[in-house]
């Protein structure tokens, strides 16, 4: 038997302070309130650092710093000058990528293989891509000289902390806006490290402000009267609240919310690669992906064959220490999320679906959930309708392409979908019929800064990435 010895990435490369303040106007400042919280390593429950829960007064201070920077420096800076800063940030991210990857895995629980090979390269790519747009906005199709909006309030989730920051900050700065960003309360560390990068890049003070905190901080930020733009990525529930509170305020709003993507496998699909795509679709980042392929729609004629192959493949997944370079499945981000995954999985069993997991040892400390498969799932089951946001796959079947489309679209969400077939015409036909912002063909969970991303229906509105992503940060 060939057992892989532990191959942990060294955590010595990161320097985590015991306690963090807020990053406002280019400086580290103490919160004006006295509420604090701790962020833990979800793989060990060890406390990593303490951070402030920013108060309304803190938000006010950060927004006015951003306003001042917008009016005195950034808003009037020529695009080619803004581009220089963005290119510089992108290069620093590349130089420090190993450190940032380790920090991300520590704080989030995702395997180092993913933070190193997926998150960080994409983060740098986003900054490089939008740096390129900064002096070419007149050619983006939004008029000759599209104007920025002003101050952008940005609230991001915990599943891809630094990548979501890049998706938000890069286009905002490229278009000439200044930013107040709130990272999620369970994963503030890479955003705080990014604040240091802004200083290293000598970004003018106030252009990027990072305020940490939980729901109340986010609420204060999006409701602040002096912000011109609100961008949120997170749950549909919170997105609804934000849409309600922003309505009528004149603030421009983009929302990137939940999903329940269908990954559709036809009988003529390249079987081994489809299995890989299914695994990557739902077990990538422990399933903490809004566009995760959490519903597998498989053509009935190959159901047994595909499920056998899938189960065999799941048995080779390696769950454990996120910093081990051979880990495939890391830790669930928080106790709260773990409880939600458990409760929905139990609901799946109660409703009569058949549950299967490979036998894999679960570490004693930390938050863990084994890769899980539900077969015999019906459209009406909760696990086929609600977003689980964990490593849980619901398997449904279909008979014809039309039925596949019907079932795939029969969801309040519409963020992404996957189609697996060797027949090109069927891919095009399906892509045309599926109501989802992204349709992947013979692949899944592939991201690129040049490609717009966003949802239909309750998955939100507005697009991030690509030329389309500029629109959200321009006064058009």
């Amino acid at each position, binding site marked *: 038997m*060939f057992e892989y010895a532990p191959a942990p990435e060294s955590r010595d490369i990161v320097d985590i302070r015991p306690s963090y303040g807020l990053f406002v106007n280019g400086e580290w400042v103490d919160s004006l309130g006295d509420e604090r919280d701790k962020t833990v390593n979800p793989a060990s429950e060890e406390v990593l650092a303490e951070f402030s829960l920013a108060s309304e007064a803190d938000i006010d201070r950060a927004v006015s710093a951003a306003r001042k920077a917008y009016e005195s420096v950034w808003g009037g800076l020529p695009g080619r000058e803004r581009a220089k800063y963005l290119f510089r940030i992108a290069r620093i991210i590349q130089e420090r990528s190993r450190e940032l990857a380790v920090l991300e895995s520590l704080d989030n629980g995702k395997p180092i293989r993913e933070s190193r090979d997926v998150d960080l390269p994409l983060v740098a790519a986003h900054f490089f891509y939008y740096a390129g747009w900064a002096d070419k906005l007149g050619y983006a199709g939004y008029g000759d000289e599209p104007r920025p909006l002003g101050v952008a309030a940005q609230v991001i989730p915990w599943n891809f902390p630094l990548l979501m920051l890049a998706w938000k900050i890069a286009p905002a700065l490229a278009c000439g806006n200044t930013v107040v960003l709130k990272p999620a309360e369970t994963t503030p560390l890479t955003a705080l490290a990014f604040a240091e990068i802004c200083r290293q890049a000598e970004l003018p003070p106030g252009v990027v402000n990072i305020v940490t905190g939980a729901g109340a901080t986010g609420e204060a930020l999006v409701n602040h009267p002096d912000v011109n733009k609100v961008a949120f990525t997170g749950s549909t529930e919170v997105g609804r609240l934000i849409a309600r509170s922003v309505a009528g305020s004149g603030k421009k709003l983009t929302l990137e919310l939940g999903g329940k993507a269908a990954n559709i496998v036809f009988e003529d699909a390249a079987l081994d690669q489809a299995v890989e795509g299914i695994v990557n679709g739902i077990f990538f980042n422990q399933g903490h992906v809004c566009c995760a392929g959490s519903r597998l729609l498989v053509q009935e004629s190959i159901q047994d064959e595909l499920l056998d192959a899938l189960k065999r493949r799941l048995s080779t997944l390696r769950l454990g220490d996120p910093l081990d370079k051979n880990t495939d499945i890391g830790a669930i981000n928080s106790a709260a999320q773990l409880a939600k995954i458990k409760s929905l999985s139990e609901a799946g069993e109660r409703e009569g679906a058949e549950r299967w997991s490979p036998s894999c040892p679960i570490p004693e400390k930390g938050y863990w959930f084994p890769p899980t498969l539900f077969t015999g799932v019906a459209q009406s089951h909760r696990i086929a309708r609600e977003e689980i946001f964990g490593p849980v796959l619901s398997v449904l079947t279909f008979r014809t392409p039309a039925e596949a489309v019907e079932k795939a679209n029969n969801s309040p969400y519409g963020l992404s979908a996957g189609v697996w077939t*060797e027949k090109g015409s069927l891919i095009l036909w399906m892509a045309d019929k599926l109501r989802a912002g992204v349709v992947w063909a013979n692949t899944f969970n592939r991201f690129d800064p040049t490609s717009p991303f966003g949802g239909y229906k309750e998955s939100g509105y507005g697009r991030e990435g690509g030329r389309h992503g500029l629109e959200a940060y321009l006064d058009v």
Partner: protein
Amino acid sequence: MSPETLLRRLLTGLRATFAEMSEAVSADGRFGTITLVGDAGEVSTLTTSLVEIASSNATLRAFLHGLPGVDRVGADQRATMLGTRSIKTTAKAQAIDLAISMVDLTTLEGADTAGKVRAMCAKAVQPDPGDPSVPKVAAVCVYPDLVAEAVHALGRSGVRVASVATAFPSGRSSLDVKVGDTALAVAAGADEIDMVIDRGAFLSGDYRKIFEEIVAIKAACARGESAAGKGDPHLKVILETGELQTYDNVRRASWLAMLAGADFIKTSTGKVSPAATLPVTLVMLEAVRDFRLQTGRMVGVKPAGGIRTTKDAIKYLVLVNETAGPDWLDPDWFRLGASSLLNDLLMQRQKMATGRYAGPDYFTLD
């Protein structure tokens, strides 16, 4: 795989006429009565359904084209991802010894001589004269006319003698010549025959010709009464994947060779670039895995050519471990065809033991 699945495969791959198809269905209308003969672990006869598949070029074609496709991008990605596995400390030491014991130490040059072969055989038995704990390699691989020399040099060391045959490397000759070539190597005492397939026939769709050639060479591998004490040589079938080019072709050629009775499928002659690659080996490992599920018979895999470093070799072992499974992590079921790889393995092995690298002068040329 159930007979129903098999039939569906056949139907989805159907380019044959109905009449030809019906030949594939046995007389009583049932498809694929599975009859496995022999003890578990022994080579079993093919399922009757598989024999029917080989009955004509049309049925063979229908079957091979009905196999699930291979998506190039996906296969490449999977191989790349497995290449990032980090094999360190005890796992690395274990992998290096395993890799050494899987090496088919190869010399296939026009300039080969008896002296060169003798020297290589000595190295095969004792790769590192300074360290008797180094395992011996699996086999040496030579041209047919040098088999006798290798057999003599290796004696009872346990290192096997493999011989390329069948108008290697191009395979462009008559079946008679190929059989004669094989018979020469078998008579000289080869334990393994590495034959090449007719890639021209494959690319022009004449699968039946390749099937028949493999069957004929397999028959030529049978040793007569004269060589009592030695079993029949194993047959390795070289697909020359660098000339087949697409992964779909690699999968089809793998199945074709296995259906015809190959004991091993091998990527390359080493004379064509690209030789072995990780994704091609991945596709072949998937094929042997699926073939065992369907027929119960286990077939070995041998990537050959272009594997030069320990790092490469370990990537192949990871690929085997996570694709076909640990059953294949054995010199009986997986080989690495290489020449310069051995010294890099020895160098890394010594580095693990002493913490220092010794220069190339401290490892014997051959």
